[in-house]
């Protein structure tokens, strides 16, 4: 079995009485990219600073190649530290030195290379990071993205054995972010260094990681492969993996299935005296195909439009609604029992949707994909499970509106 290069054993660290790490066990293996993820302020950067020795643990042990760092002599600790480099979250560039001097500093201070050799190495690193032409500028004269790359160049210039990256992609545009992540992975593969990353860029960063550790509430919640992470059913872990979905949910304003079911159970007591209710279901047919053909943002816009228009039509009534699954919106309407009322509502909704941009074929000039939204309803009762009522409503579903790439056509409710 592979021996960890760096190992945390029951490490505890507190600041002003607040415990940031509590008995943390963590293993970092040589030649791998290990990513620490977690919410802001959970101790990810502290973990990196403990690894490099900028901070010392209050309790527990940090082992490097099986040797307790706390028991190392000065010489041994110095030799260990020489193999590390660190890229700070806010770059920590020397603002009174030029870009060139910043990158060259570790070589000038710690090696006996000739000025010519130093220049060659610095220029080569600058070229690989697309930094040529700014050698004589000061950090304050270049953009945030460039500062990040200069910090990266400085971290890699001495070819360290272990590189610690504290949020290397924070503040970068998507193109630069991808280039930094790919540069880390390419350099890591070329030089074989061990990389430890702290990042919020989930899921992007998972593609370049061999191992992932999630820190939550001062402890390691998960440690293992990115694949294993995907298999996890812990809510906090899923929150991280599906942070993009969470953003969509926040923008659309639709509660997810769990929240919808909780709201339904809460409401059942309140509705008990006021009779039955209607369960209305809107289904975007073939949602994954829409995502594939017109793209994520196009599919998201369809969902957003549907939710927003439905909300506007039922806003004068009491209602509970949410996203039952990826393509289904469920709306519960207490006190609505007559079928004509619901059909009238769906008719108005169909008319309204037909006028929306997402159902206009001329909006899809390059890629168009025909799709439809169907609607169904059923009478609900407190004794039934929500899932059964939704299935019943789906079974009676009819087309509400359809996008035809030739022209948008009306469904049967209109």
């Amino acid at each position, binding site marked *: 079995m592979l021996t960890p290069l760096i190992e945390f054993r029951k490490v505890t660290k507190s600041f002003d009485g607040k415990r940031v790490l509590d008995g943390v066990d963590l293993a970092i293996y040589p030649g791998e990219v290990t990513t620490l993820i977690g919410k802001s302020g959970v101790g990810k950067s502290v973990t990196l600073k403990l690894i490099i020795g*900028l901070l010392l643990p209050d309790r527990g042990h940090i082992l490097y190649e099986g040797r307790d760092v706390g028991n190392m002599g000065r010489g041994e600790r110095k030799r260990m530290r020489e193999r590390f480099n*660190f890229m700070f979250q806010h770059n*920590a*560039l*020397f603002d009174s030195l030029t870009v060139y001097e910043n990158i060259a500093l570790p070589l000038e*201070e*710690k090696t006996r290379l000739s000025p010519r050799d130093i220049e060659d190495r610095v220029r080569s690193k600058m070229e690989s990071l697309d930094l040529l032409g700014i050698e004589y500028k000061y950090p304050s004269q270049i953009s945030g993205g460039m500062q990040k790359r200069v910090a990266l160049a400085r971290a890699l210039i001495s070819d360290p054995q272990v590189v610690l990256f504290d949020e290397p992609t924070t503040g970068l545009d998507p193109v630069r972010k991808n280039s930094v992540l790919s540069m880390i992975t390419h350099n890591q593969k070329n030089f074989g260094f061990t990389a430890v990353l702290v990042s919020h860029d989930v899921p992007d960063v998972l593609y370049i990681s061999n191992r992932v550790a999630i820190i939550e509430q001062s402890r390691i919640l998960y440690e293992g492969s990115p694949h294993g992470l995907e298999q996890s059913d812990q809510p906090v872990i899923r929150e991280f993996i599906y942070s993009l979905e969470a953003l969509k949910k926040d923008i659309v304003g639709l509660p997810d299935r769990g929240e919808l079911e909780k709201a339904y159970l809460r409401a059942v007591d309140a509705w008990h005296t006021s009779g039955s209710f209607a369960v209305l279901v809107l289904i975007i047919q073939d949602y994954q195909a829409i995502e594939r053909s017109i793209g994520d943002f196009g599919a998201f816009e369809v969902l957003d439009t549907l939710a927003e228009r439905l909300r506007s039509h039922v806003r004068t009534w009491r209602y509970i609604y949410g996203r039952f699954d990826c393509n289904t919106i469920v709306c519960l309407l207490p006190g609505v029992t007559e079928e004509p009322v619901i059909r009238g509502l769906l008719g108005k909704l169909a008319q309204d949707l037909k006028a929306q941009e997402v159902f206009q074929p001329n909006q899809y000039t390059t890629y168009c994909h025909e799709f439809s939204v169907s609607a169904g309803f059923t009478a609900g009762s407190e004794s039934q499970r929500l899932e059964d009522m939704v299935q019943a409503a789906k079974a009676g579903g009819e087309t509400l509106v359809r996008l035809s790439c030739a022209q948008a056509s009306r469904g049967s409710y209109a």
Partner: protein
Amino acid sequence: MTWRDSHSFENSHSPLQALAWVGRNTVQLIREMGAVFLFFLQGLLLIFQLPFQIRKSLQQVYFIGVKSIFVILLVGIFTGMVLGLQGYYTLVKFGSEGVLGGMVALSIIRELGPVLTAIMIIGRAGSAMAAEIGIMRISEQIDALVTMDINPIRYLFSPRIVASVISFPLLTALFNVIGIIGGYISGVLLLGVNSGIFFSRMENLVNIHDIMGGFYKALGFGLIVVTICCYQGFYVHTRREGFGAKGVSLATTSAVVLSCVFVLITDYVLTSFLL
């Protein structure tokens, strides 16, 4: 317990509390002084670690020394002139205006030269040192040095010690010369003291012991100023009164105030030993 009881209860404890406060602050002061001394000792020893930081030391000599020349010239000339003026009107009452040259030279060489030079450098370079190192601390630049296995005390403090040891005596010497010229301008050129008597009295009254005393003072002040200013900046993150920009501002203020206070205290101590 009534308010009265509580009040008397508080009163019964106040001498103890006061004693505890004094004890706490004394321990804190001694600890701080020990930390400053260790900081100085590390910086001093690291000067001799190879390779020597000649270029960085020269850069600091330029910053602390060369860039302070103008302000030293300005302060020196007017200090000498006002000393000549005041001295003349005091001495003329006793008919002793002939000793003006000696009086101006002794005052400047023994006291005013080293002290005012030190205070001027504190204001111009000392505050800048504290602020620069403080900003490096709060922006993690010092941590970056540690992660690159570069000793920050050697990198930031040792060249400044070297520069202070070179700059303070030289600037003091410059202050002395320009101050004497100032005294000459007001005493001889403006008030009509005989030029020959001015210089011959100066030659008679000033000896090498006075000049060396001023030199030792300048050296001592240099070490005190650079240590206090760099220490304040280097440990800005440990201040409890303020962090970030506020911490740097407080560190700069403390650096200037403490340096001035310690320069004046040291001046008295050294003078009492040297006289």
